[in-house]
């Protein structure tokens, strides 16, 4: 007790030296970060020892928590002890790591003063750390405004602790929600379009009843635009201390790749992404490339782990409090969802899931300190099964990267995080994190009328991550939409939930407004954006990285060939399907049937369009061959042969078969893109297949080659990826319906 009084005295004298010491005294939990930062291990060790002594004294006086408590951390125990006695304001402060909890002031007379002091101090500490121990500068910076409840600074608490106010709820349930738009430009990410739902204030305010038996409530704050990170400070970001030591080591590879100092901790891209993630806002990033893949994967894994650890700490704290509380205490401990799974990561292939789990392990339990349950089974399951890549005539690089590793697309793994272990293959209802493919979930979710279907585990997802969302489009987009429709529904069974601890907003069925969704895709597509706009209703708002495409993939076409862009009219996306078909049949096909125009490949992105064209060709008795993802290998070989040897005038070619097989079709003289391709680089790739070395010398000539593209204004985004945004905009808005570009010089 005396010791603490002493500290207080020092504090009041405002001596900076004592402050530092106290600083270190109290920050037991941040051991590792302090080691990293101050690099003054010895001194700190001394301080730590001192601290231990104090703690022991304390524990002798105080009630000690039972052994059964999961979190063995002495510090936590201390904190929980104090909160029992201190006032409610202090209780809110408890969970944060930064809270320096001067710990000892349960002497009533000093408590109040100390309370404010300790918070002042906490703020100072943050400054201290920021300036790397440069103490003297900070003295004047501590003003009253900066004194904030440190726990509330934590975006996790801010996002999940409170209910929605009526005004915000009304705003959210509107379609579209009444919101505010902000545009920002960041160094790495470029243009950010930030949309934040704003509470509707115009509706008549409810008369406040004179007398009410309902308690006063604190509501969730409306979202704020994210701020870019200047420096990476673990405490300011509220990264859990448990993983501080692993953050850099797990990210080493990415740092080395970009030739950065280890002290940078994150790469510039990671910094900006994490600023948004940690603000608990939805994110759509459609510029994922294979070179950025690892960075992105790391940063969301870090976010996931951080989120889960905070959730877990909270629950463990509450468990301890509940076991201590009296029978009739009115206090509520709400810290859970209706079911356990909180994080869902959707990826297209097992190889991607493998990488994610590896990263999670690196961050949470690097080799020596922790253990992973069922690791062998996981290794067995998720490796192997690679596609054989041809050595001669190699496939394009992006294909090799995409399909390296296990390419199976039906899988789902549940994971549980405990103090020092990561358990794989846990039952979904005992899992914290689920990593799955859309197909893997779709099978579980099932459809109406199926005997065994289960989607209860999707009820309380707080964090949804979709990586490589563009590949879902190649797999089966409907599966994804179907799964997304089954989020946050009322469960059919209780699954052993303790209903007294379900968060109020989950009980009220507002989980969908609290879910954060992060989507990473390599291409910007309206389909993906519509998911963001329609199925993600995060009350904190969303950030869409939206950079115009300057140069399209048309620049990569090396051949001298005219590109003819046909624009047709359509009034809605649905109508454009019909209009496209009509236009193709009336304006394109008749000309193309001229014997001069033989060796025409018709590239069809949508399988539905493909089937329609095929049926039409059959009905009209037009000579053609076809290759789609369902064709047998022998048929494909035959079709390619016939096409090359001028035996078939047309080749119907589906985009999906190109995505999964990447044939080099030979003998193409004309290409018709029935719709601009989903992946812009497929465009240049297809066009470049027309080079002379691939041609049949007896089938047409070099001067008779064309590329035609059909597009409506609903294909604007796809067209922009081909020709560049500015050119596409001009083409789509000009009076003339046909535009011709020439490539090659």
């Amino acid at each position, binding site marked *: 007790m005396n010791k603490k009084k002493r500290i207080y005295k020092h504090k009041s004298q405002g001596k900076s030296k004592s402050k530092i010491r106290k600083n270190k005294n109290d920050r037991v939990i941040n051991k590792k970060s302090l080691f990293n930062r101050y690099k003054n291990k010895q001194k700190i060790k001394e301080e730590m020892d001192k601290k231990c002594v104090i703690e022991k004294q304390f524990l002798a006086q105080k009630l000690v928590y039972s052994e059964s408590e999961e979190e063995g951390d002495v510090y936590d125990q201390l904190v929980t002890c104090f909160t029992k006695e201190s006032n409610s304001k202090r209780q809110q402060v408890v969970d944060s790591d930064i809270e320096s909890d001067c710990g000892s002031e349960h002497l009533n007379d000093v408590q109040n003063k100390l309370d404010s002091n300790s918070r002042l101090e906490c703020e100072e500490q943050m400054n201290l750390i920021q300036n790397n121990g440069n103490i003297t500068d900070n003295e004047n910076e501590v003003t009253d405004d900066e004194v904030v409840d440190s726990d509330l600074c934590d975006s996790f608490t801010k996002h999940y602790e409170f209910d929605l106010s009526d005004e915000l709820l009304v705003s959210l349930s509107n379609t579209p929600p009444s919101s505010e738009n902000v545009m920002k430009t960041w160094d790495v990410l470029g243009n950010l379009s930030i949309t934040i739902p704003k509470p509707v204030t115009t509706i008549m305010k409810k008369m406040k*009843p004179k007398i009410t038996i309902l308690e006063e409530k604190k509501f969730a704050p409306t979202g704020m635009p994210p701020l870019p990170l200047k420096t990476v400070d673990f405490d300011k970001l509220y990264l859990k201390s448990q993983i501080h030591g692993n953050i850099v080591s797990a990210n080493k590879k990415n740092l080395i790749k970009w030739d950065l100092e280890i002290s940078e901790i994150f790469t510039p891209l990671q910094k900006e992404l994490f600023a948004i993630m940690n603000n608990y806002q939805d994110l759509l990033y459609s510029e994922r490339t294979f070179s950025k893949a690892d960075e992105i994967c790391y940063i969301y894994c870090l976010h996931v782990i951080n989120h889960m650890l905070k959730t877990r700490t909270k629950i463990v704290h509450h468990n301890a409090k509940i076991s201590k509380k009296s029978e*009739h205490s009115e206090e509520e401990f709400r810290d859970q969802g*209706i079911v356990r799974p909180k994080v869902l990561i959707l990826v297209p292939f097992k190889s991607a899931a493998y990488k994610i789990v590896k990263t999670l392990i690196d961050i949470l339990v690097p080799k020596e300190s922790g253990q992973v349950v069922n690791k062998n089974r996981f290794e067995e399951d998720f490796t192997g099964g690679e596609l054989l890549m041809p050595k001669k005539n190699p496939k394009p690089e992006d294909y090799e990267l995409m399909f390296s590793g296990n390419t199976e697309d039906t899988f789902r793994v549940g994971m549980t995080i405990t103090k020092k272990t990561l358990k794989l293959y846990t039952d979904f209802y005992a899992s914290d994190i689920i990593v799955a493919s859309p197909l893997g979930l779709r099978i579980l979710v099932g459809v109406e009328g199926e005997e065994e279907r289960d989607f209860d585990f999707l009820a309380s997802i707080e964090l949804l991550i979709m990586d490589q969302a563009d590949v879902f489009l190649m797999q089966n987009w409907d599966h994804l939409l179907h799964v997304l429709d089954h989020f946050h529904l*009322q469960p059919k069974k209780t699954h052993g939930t303790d209903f007294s601890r*379900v968060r109020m907003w989950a009980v009220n069925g507002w989980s969908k407004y609290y879910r954060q969704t992060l989507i990473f895709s390599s291409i910007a597509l309206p389909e993906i954006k519509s998911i963001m706009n329609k199925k993600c209703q995060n009350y904190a708002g969303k950030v869409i990285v939206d950079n115009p495409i300057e140069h399209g993939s048309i620049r990569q076409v090396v051949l001298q060939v005219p590109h003819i862009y046909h624009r047709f009219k359509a009034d809605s996306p649905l109508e454009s399907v019909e209009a496209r078909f009509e236009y193709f049949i009336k304006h394109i096909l008749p000309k193309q049937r001229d014997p001069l125009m033989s060796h025409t490949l018709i590239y069809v992105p949508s399988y539905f369009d493909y089937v329609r064209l095929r049926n039409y060709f059959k009905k009209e008795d037009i000579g053609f061959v076809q290759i789609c993802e369902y064709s047998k290998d022998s048929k494909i070989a035959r079709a390619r042969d016939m096409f090359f040897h001028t035996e078939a005038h047309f080749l119907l070619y589906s985009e999906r078969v190109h995505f999964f097989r990447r044939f080099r079709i030979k003998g193409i003289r004309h290409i018709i893109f029935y719709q601009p391709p989903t992946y812009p680089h497929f465009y240049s790739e297809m066009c470049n297949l027309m080079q002379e070395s691939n041609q049949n010398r007896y089938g047409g000539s070099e001067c008779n080659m064309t590329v035609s593209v059909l597009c409506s204004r609903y294909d604007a985004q796809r067209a922009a990826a081909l020709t560049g945004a500015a050119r596409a905009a001009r083409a789509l808005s000009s009076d003339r319906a046909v535009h011709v570009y020439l490539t090659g010089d």
Partner: protein
Amino acid sequence: MTADSEQSEDETSITDQPTLNEQVDDEATVTFKDLGIVDVLCEACEELKWKTPSKIQKEAIPVALEGKDIIGLAETGSGKTGAFALPILQALLENPQRYFALILTPTRELAFQISEQFEALGASIGVKCAVIVGGMDMVAQALMLSKKPHIIIATPGRLVDHLENTKGFNLKAVKYLVMDEADRILNMDFEVEVDKILRVIPRERRTYLFSATMTKKVQKLQRASLQDPVKVEVSTKYQTVDKLQQYYLFIPVKYKDVYLVHVLNELSGHSFIVFVATCAGALRAALLLRNLGLAAVPLHGQMSQNKRLAALNKFKNKSRSILICTDVASRGLDIPHVDVVINLDIPLHSKDYIHRVGRTARAGRAGKAITFVSQYDVELYQRIEQLIGKQLPKYDAEEAEVLILQERVAEAQRLTNILLRNHYQFQIIVGRHSLLPFPS
């Protein structure tokens, strides 16, 4: 009025005389405020158009506000719900707390009705109620309970289910326990459940029992859970209302249907409740009447909760004038416009007779009750006469006139049987579990 009731009334008001006129005068003089109800709740009463307290309210509220346990004897429709809702809400105002009161009722419909009253009375102070009855989704109810309502209105079976299976739900904080239709809760084999509930709620609480009839079992219950209760009685024990005209009709079993149709025809334009003994009987009678072009709707325990509510609403808003029901509907349901009650099957428990005919001639209006007595029911009928203490007049029906209908009714019966057979076969095909026995 008998001496019995006067005695209890004397305790609180001297002016209360057993004659109807003076009763009206008396109601004009006493207000809710006089009973000790706070202003907020008085305003709520006014909004509900409750100008003056009813008899049972006058009796019970002051006793309740004193903090005593109550055994209240009053027919439903006499303002019983208000009699316990007002004191509970007032106590809640003084000491706001979640899971404050538990109301047990025997039927689901009654539970919803009580909840409506609580919500109407407590709207201005923000009372939250949860109705926990069978036939509804368990998870949805668990979520409702998780919102920590102030008042829980429940049927015992489902409540026990939640107590046992819903983690994180307990009733350790309950301050008030009310059992509505207390004797029925016991009669219907709720005893085991009620015992379980009593075991998990604190002994430190107020307990109110309300019922129109009291059995010895209630006294047993009283020993188990009441502390020094005050008995509040406003009506004669088993008396039926004066304005109720009661008749019996002695007929052979095989003509029951014909006579039913005859009576419904003769009194057409009125609203009817027809009581039958079994669920299957209710279904059959409803189909039979529909075949004859009469707007009948069944209500029985094997219907889903939504259907039951829908049926009740159809009857309440007068789109159907005939409600065919089992004893599910014999108590508590607040249906204001029943003109005639027909006991197609005589009640097995004679006290049920009181409840059944209590559906009509409510709130000072006139009503008719006709009981069909077959050759097998004579003894049961005599017991009823004994219970109500008077001989009923015979309902006049010219047999020849009735039997004119025989041919049409027989045809309808045949059609009904075919329909029913198809219905049950369909149930077998789709594999429903709730198979009804095929009616003979």
